[in-house]
């Protein structure tokens, strides 16, 4: 069991074709895991394969999946944003604070604009947060991990301060519509997320600007020599990340019926877990949105199957962690690829 035999490291250049075909499958490496989970779910409970349950899982994945979409784009471009987990909470609060009437309610805002502006304001707030993070990282050349970690704390604090720690329940109906409506029997949020993933996936696959993210994440110097405006594109991606997180906040608010003061709090771990087990590299330049999506679904299915199986509460968290590691090992061996 000792790692002394490190010399058995594989030769530097292997058969050039082998690596490649496996590389392709890297983004599919969680598919077998999903299948295994599906089989277990099927065994554990007949309710698993009902459309109610599966749609439920999809709906539960929506907000997280948008953060994952945002983080995947940012990671592919070689950056990180931890503050997404706070943006999902603070952006709605800011919007609602600007919009809600200044007296009479349980939570009083500024009453500056009509109710329908809440959604655009929320998106604007998210974009602004991304833009400020981007400025600090790209202009002042501060460490992105720590900037966004500071922002995470600060924005959560801002939310608490603005909302005075309360959940905000009286919301403009336009603001809660998207998160609570159903279209053709499936929650609107599910349609929207699917659409956004599809759009994002296409942009990454077929648009120059999408491809630029891979180039920047893979080697920013080389991207610059190829004429890509590295800083500008990175900035746009960070803004887009904030925007998506704010939009996730809108869905969250509608889905759960209020803006709670700890909305999204602690999610960033899950966001990274989903993104990285889905095959997106922490070092940039690698991964697909499809992979990231399978990451989200894996995490949510684990919870779903455990709930259906009625795992004893005290062992719940332990099993959750264990399953993540096992999933990782399965995907490691089905893809045949090391994960560094």
């Amino acid at each position, binding site marked *: 069991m000792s790692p002394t035999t490190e010399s058995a490291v594989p030769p530097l250049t292997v058969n050039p074709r082998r690596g490649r075909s496996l590389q392709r499958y890297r983004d599919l490496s969680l598919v077998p895991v999903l299948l295994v989970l599906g089989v277990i779910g099927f065994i554990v409970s007949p309710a698993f394969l*009902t459309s109610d*349950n599966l749609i439920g899982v999809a709906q539960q994945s929506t907000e997280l999946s948008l953060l994952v979409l945002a983080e995947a784009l940012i990671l592919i471009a070689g950056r990180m944003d931890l503050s997404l987990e706070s943006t999902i909470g603070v952006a709605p609060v800011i919007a609602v604070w600007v919009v809600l009437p200044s007296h009479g309610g349980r939570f009083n805002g500024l009453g500056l604009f009509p109710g329908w502006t809440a959604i655009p304001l929320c998106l604007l707030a998210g974009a602004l947060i991304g833009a400020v993070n981007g400025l600090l990282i790209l202009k002042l050349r501060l460490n992105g991990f720590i900037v966004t970690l500071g922002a995470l704390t600060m924005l959560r604090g801002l939310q608490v301060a603005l909302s005075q720690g309360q959940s905000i329940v009286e919301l403009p109906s336009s603001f809660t519509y998207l998160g609570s409506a159903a279209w053709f029997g499936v929650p609107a949020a599910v349609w929207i997320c699917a659409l956004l993933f599809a759009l994002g996936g296409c942009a990454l696959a077929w648009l120059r600007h999408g491809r630029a993210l891979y180039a920047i994440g893979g080697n920013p110097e080389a991207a610059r020599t190829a004429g890509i405006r590295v800083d500008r594109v990175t900035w746009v991606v960070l803004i887009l990340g904030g925007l998506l997180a704010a939009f996730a906040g809108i869905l969250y608010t509608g889905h759960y*019926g209020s803006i709670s*003061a*700890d909305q999204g709090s602690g999610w960033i771990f899950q966001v990274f877990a989903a993104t990285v087990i889905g095959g997106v590299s922490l070092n940039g330049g690698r991964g697909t949105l499809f992979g990231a999506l399978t990451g989200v679904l894996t995490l949510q299915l684990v919870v779903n199957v455990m709930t*259906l199986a009625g795992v004893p*509460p005290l062992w719940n968290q332990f099993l959750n962690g264990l399953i993540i590691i096992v999933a990782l090992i399965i995907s490691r061996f089905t893809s045949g690829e090391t994960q560094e």
Partner: protein
Amino acid sequence: GRGGGSGSASGKPAIGIDLPRSDSDFWNSYAQYLKADIGSDGAHTLPISSSQNDVTKLVANVQAFENTGAKAVVMAPQDTGAIASTLDRLAAKKIPVISVDTRPDKGNVYMVVRADNRAYGTQACQFLGRQLGGKGKVAEFEGDLTSVNGRDRSQAFADCMKQNYPGIQVFALPTNWDGSVASSKLQTTLAQNPDLNGIYMQAGGVFLQPTLALLQQKGLLKPAGQPGHITIISNDGIPQEFDAIRQGQIDATISQPADLYAKYALYYAEAATQGKTFQPGPTDHDSTIIKLPNGLEDQLPAPLVTKDNVDDKSLWGNSVSH
């Protein structure tokens, strides 16, 4: 500057107060009551700190209280173990401690101001048992398994169900006090058991809105009395729960008295600085003081609120400032 309390001129001894968190409806109400009571009492308090649900911050804050001359400390340690040595140290310095909401596992306290959390669980169980006639399926949103309140409520609920209502099937769902987790686990449970009859939420502050939203979306939010109504009992007694009771969306809640928590925390803190002592037994405010191995506990009343008494003005949820 040194904001916080008023009246250092009053010459009263200083009281250090720490809030456990500032992102929950319940604790913010508590904070507001505290502020009001401090104003009306003319108590001398050090700047109020917040430990953001982190016991190490609590300990650091308490240490700052010691260093700035606190003569009594009010805290609400959500981690009831890791406060032990701090209590010992405060005891050695003869600084009395009032613990709100939780009962420290070890270390002396002057007074625990709390309601009986096991009683919450038992009351909820009995309410559901009665309403469902002793049979059916109930989902329970457990709080954080590492918090004493969550554990007390879970255990009491489980014990009571097992003993009194074996015909009721309980789905215990751990949630870490997280509304979105509760919602998704409820959704799963509903897919598996479309015939769910009841829900016990251990904290209305975090679970109420997500639950209502989910049931609404699923078309399961039938008013009490109608067929298909899911019987829901909550806990905390915040105004939103009262609204939901009035609308028949939920059936009951247990009013965890934020106002009394604040009032008696301050009361006992001042009493402590004046050297007063208390004995076990009934009090003048509808509660009983019981003896603990490490101090006393004033078990404040936590009334069950249903449609019948939801408009009672004495309930804190009806008087909390807007």
